[in-house]
């Protein structure tokens, strides 16, 4: 039956995309909204939604872009939804760092992540997608559903916002 074949294609696609992108997306989502357990939920939601839409996406590039957009959107929602976060204990991303991690600059990373947390959503998204996601301006624009010009201005204002925090350790 038609839907069975599509169903198993979607299953295979989810398996492949999971192997290639799950960890990175969870890390991205953790940087965006701060809680690792919530990040996993958001990314799993994105995969479930992708499975449902597989017929319309079909090819891997579109699927990855769809996952990214869903994760950004999901994190934005979570930012405003303390209800979900309350189910999980508050924790900074990368809790319980090892001694080595701290030694190689964990404190500096914490300062940036801390400062990032204080930025408006859009600025934080632009910075995380660019400097952690390694995305091009237009990829960022499509993930955030805004124009290229708006990406530029959010990113530069975000960087300016981080500058104070960075001055303390650079």
């Amino acid at each position, binding site marked *: 039956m038609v*839907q069975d074949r*599509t169903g198993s294609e979607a299953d295979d696609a*989810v398996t492949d995309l999971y192997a290639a992108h799950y960890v990175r997306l969870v890390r991205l989502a953790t940087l965006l909204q701060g809680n690792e357990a919530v990040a996993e939920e958001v990314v799993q939601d994105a995969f479930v939604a992708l499975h449902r839409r597989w017929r319309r996406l079909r090819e891997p590039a579109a699927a990855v872009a769809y996952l990214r957009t869903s994760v950004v959107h999901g994190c934005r929602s979570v930012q405003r939804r303390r*209800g979900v976060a309350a189910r999980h204990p508050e924790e900074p991303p990368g809790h319980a760092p090892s001694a080595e991690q701290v030694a190689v*600059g964990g404190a500096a990373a914490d300062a940036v992540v801390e400062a990032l947390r204080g930025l408006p959503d859009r600025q934080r998204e632009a910075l995380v997608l660019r400097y952690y996601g390694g995305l091009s301006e237009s990829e960022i624009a499509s993930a955030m559903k805004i124009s290229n010009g708006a990406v530029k201005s959010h990113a530069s204002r975000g960087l300016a916002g981080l500058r104070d925090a960075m001055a303390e350790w650079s």
Partner: protein
Amino acid sequence: MSTPEDWTPEEQQVHDALHRAAERVQPGPDGLARIRRRTAVVPMWRRPVVLGLAGATALAAAVIVGGAIVLSNDDDDTPVATTTSTSPATSPNGTPTDTSPPTSPPAAETTPPAQTLTVPVYYVADAGDGLRLVREFHTVETSLPPVAAAINEMLTAPPADPDYTTLWEPGVEVLSADVADGAIVVDLSGPPAVGDDPDLATQQLVYTATAAAATAQLDGSLPVRIAVGGENPSEPVGRADPLEVRQLVQLNDPAEGATLPSPVTVSGEAAVNEANVLWELRRDGEVVDSGNTTAEECCTFSPFAFELDLEPGSYEIVVSESDESGGEGRPPMSDSRTFTVE
């Protein structure tokens, strides 16, 4: 576009810091299994439909109106004036259609003439609280009767709003949708594949069918029975409580992608606290104006409208409910449209 080669030292530091923080995040081992459990398809027509009852219970526990779960006939699904540029019984080339053979569906009997209908079509969107039903009005050229035409549109046409989607996979057609024995019997060509939320998918169909019935002067309060190939119609399913399943803020106008003159009338329906509807006007993602307006009634779906005087250009209008919980509850729901002022 920046590349690592032309980054400033500051940008390089941000890059390093984010990667260092990210690497400490180690996802659990069972993510794929969790996703799999949620994507496993349970055939909808084999499942008892429980949403209506669950909705009713939650409603009683919540705040508001008691009981009003069935749709009344003077429902809010009446198409909005600006979207109905219809001229029934006229074919696209302006001649009566009863002489020309129809191009569309397989006609066992005489095919009625094609006409232009504006039908309500329900889709779903995630406004921050999981998927909920949303509605568009589509103007279609069809020889199907109104209820079947609306369902056909739901099954075959994508939503105009990019934030909307459907729970129904393509490949299933509507064979008929007729009122019989106190229900709207919707006959589908094959078993539907509806993903991981069959109850809501069922409601997407039920809302579309009943809204189309109400619009066509039929009884919109009838429940819906779903059959496949004319066989085994399901138990009658009524509309679940709109406060449970519909997005609480719904824009009707402007339509997605519309080009229109100023002043622009923004209208829709909302079921919100204190009837308070917030709006933001954006250009290039930046808020350029904002305000609030009131729906006619509090806490149940009722109309709102306001006007904007705008210079030519592209805009996005976002309407939302106010966040009464101070961030403690679910996020406020919103709806948005992009449009161009000429």
